[in-house]
């Protein structure tokens, strides 16, 4: 796969300072702490600003007062009922996509692996597009349509993820086989979407197209709450995999030799990543390229040897919420957030690439 002859300018990854607390010891690098901290602070600020901006502008201080329960009248309604759910969905979706992308890229040892290229978001999109396009029809279509778009998307994503897991499983999951099976699922999912779009009424096709671009428009607490519950379970479990992933990046044989229970670890990584993507995509659509681009941005910021989980999540959230803020305030016409995440994230990654001195995987 991506094994290159070392370039001349490779510098060793600095191992950092060793920290010991009782029986626990860890190697601490300052960029691993600073990058997530800065990303978190920026995320908090952008979220607060985003809740304040709109047809009825509210200052950041008033937003914070409202959030802790000191708001009054229309402000309280606007912030808590209209704007907070949208921003919170954005934060959670960005977190989920960032972490899932980092999980897949580390697991497959391939910087192009992501829920997009492995067919999971394609499955979700196929489900959602079917629900949008087939509502008017009969039989299976009507049943799918009756489920509602978020549920159809969730089922589509879970079905694709489960297929990916089962078909790639043969006494463990080989990263290479996972990628190949993922390609096939991606192709099927996209063929279904294209087919449904050509058969649809143009109005349905148009709204389906907005959905598969990924949008935060008119998101309510009904979208935010299930997503928050799911992430409350899945995110801590994913972050707990950090140490195992650090060993797994060296290859299956080394990991096994260092005492990792490979089958269990592989199952956990793939299923957790699938779960994160499935819930996120059902809430906001497959916000394009976040999970592909963000881990590569995060690894260039922290300078580690693999995409960092927490930093990827926070950068993902920052990208989604920031892009949403831009669509709502700067642009004359409200575009779906999926367009802006790519339009902001991609050039930034390109800039890091051009400027970059080191090779990353």
């Amino acid at each position, binding site marked *: *796969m*991506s*094994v*290159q*002859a070392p*370039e001349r300018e490779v510098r060793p990854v600095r191992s950092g300072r060793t920290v010991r607390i009782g029986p626990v010891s860890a190697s601490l690098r300052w960029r691993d702490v600073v990058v997530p901290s800065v990303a978190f602070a920026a995320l908090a600020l952008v979220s607060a600003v985003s809740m304040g901006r709109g047809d009825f502008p509210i200052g950041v201080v008033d937003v914070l007062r409202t959030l802790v329960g000191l708001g009054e009248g229309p402000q309280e309604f606007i912030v808590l009922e209209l704007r907070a759910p949208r921003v919170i969905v954005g934060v959670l979706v960005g977190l989920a996509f960032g972490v899932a992308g980092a999980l897949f890229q580390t697991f497959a040892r*391939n*910087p*192009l*692996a992501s829920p997009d*290229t492995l067919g999971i978001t394609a499955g979700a999109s196929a489900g959602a597009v079917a629900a949008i396009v087939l509502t008017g029809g009969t039989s299976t279509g009507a049943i799918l349509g009756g489920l509602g778009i978020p549920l159809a998307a969730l089922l589509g994503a879970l079905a694709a993820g489960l297929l990916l897991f089962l*078909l790639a499983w*043969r006494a463990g999951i*080989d990263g*290479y*086989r996972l*990628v*190949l*099976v993922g*390609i*096939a*699922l991606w*192709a*099927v999912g*996209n*063929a*279904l979407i*294209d*087919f449904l779009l*050509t058969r649809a009424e*143009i*109005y349905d*096709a*148009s709204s389906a*197209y*907005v959905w598969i*671009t990924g949008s935060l428009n008119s998101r309510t607490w009904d979208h935010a709450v299930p997503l928050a519950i799911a992430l409350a379970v899945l995110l801590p479990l994913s972050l707990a995999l950090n140490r195992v992933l650090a060993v797994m990046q060296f290859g299956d044989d080394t990991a096994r030799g260092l005492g990792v229970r490979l089958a269990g670890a592989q199952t956990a990584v793939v299923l957790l990543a699938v779960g994160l993507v499935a819930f996120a995509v059902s809430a906001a659509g497959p916000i*394009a*390229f976040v999970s*592909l*681009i963000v881990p*590569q941005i995060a690894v260039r910021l922290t300078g580690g040897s693999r995409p960092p989980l927490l930093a990827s999540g926070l950068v993902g959230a920052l990208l989604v919420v920031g892009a949403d803020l831009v669509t709502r305030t700067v642009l004359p016409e409200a*575009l*779906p957030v*999926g*367009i*802006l995440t*790519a*339009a902001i*994230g*991609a*050039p930034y*990654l*390109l800039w890091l*690439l*051009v400027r*970059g001195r080191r*090779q*990353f*995987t």
Partner: protein
Amino acid sequence: MATTVEVPARDAVRPLARSRRARRLATLLLLLGLVVAASLASIAVGTRSIGLGDVWRALLDSDLSTEEAVIVRQLRVPRTVLGLLVGLALGIAGALMQGHTRNPLGDPGLLGVTAGASLAVVLAISVFGLTSPSGYVWFAFAGALAGTVLVYAIGSAGRGGATPLSLALAGAALSALMYALVRAVLVSDQQTLDSFRFWVVGSLAGRGADVAWQVGPFIAIGLVLALVNAPALNLLGLGEDVARGLGQRIWLARAVGLAAITLLCGAATAACGPIAFVGLVVPHMVRALTGPDHRWLLPCSGLLGAALLLGADVIGRVVVRPGELQVGIVLALIGAPFFIALVRRTRAAGL
């Protein structure tokens, strides 16, 4: 990936090499047979089935003007020729791309070909008001070329030069950017979406002989470049340092390969719209049969690509009579399960 090199005993070398060559020759002949069979089926089968005897007479006697003969000469043969060209181009471009990026996810679209072509077609529809597939050809081709040049320029701008990784990432990021522009137009412009959605599925329908003539020369040049590139690609597979040590000029090999990919994939996309499946999957299938030697892998990928594309097109004409299912859709729906079975059965041959 670590590759172990088995060194057989001296007297065992000959028979081993001979049997491998026999296997590869057999593969090549089998694929040639498949292509011929698929071509005949593509000429004979359709809304109106024509017996092979009539097909033969229509091809031999150019004065024959029965209805069958006209259908064969005016509709079926151009479509079949176009399918052959496009399938060949996509299969070979895919194998080249995976060889150069050394990434199993390396599909030719990754170099910005598909995204560039899509953007150009969207502009052709929304700004210039074109609505027919043959009108898009030059736009799509120009977009594909521009996309690739841009990806290559940015991918090689970093200090390491154009490494497989920097190319792949630059391609992914630039594609994301170009698709963002495509979507920005499509989300707000329903009329453009209405034309674009039929281009983006990928289809051989409605393209006459003129389209084949337009893209044919580019595909021919691309094929020659690709075959010239094969030995160098084998060396690059050993790692850039080894290849350099063996006297290979790295930048030349990369430049020839990328030019071939751009011409082949750009021309194919211009003719039929984006058909991702062939470039992604065919090289993996062929690699299981021929092994990683690009001198065999490239031609065999081309042949299988052509056979698959024509076969899928024939199936698409038959399953939803009197309508047609686009070839891109049929390819994915039928090809994917087969591909997964192959991946599971064999130990996937690494790159």
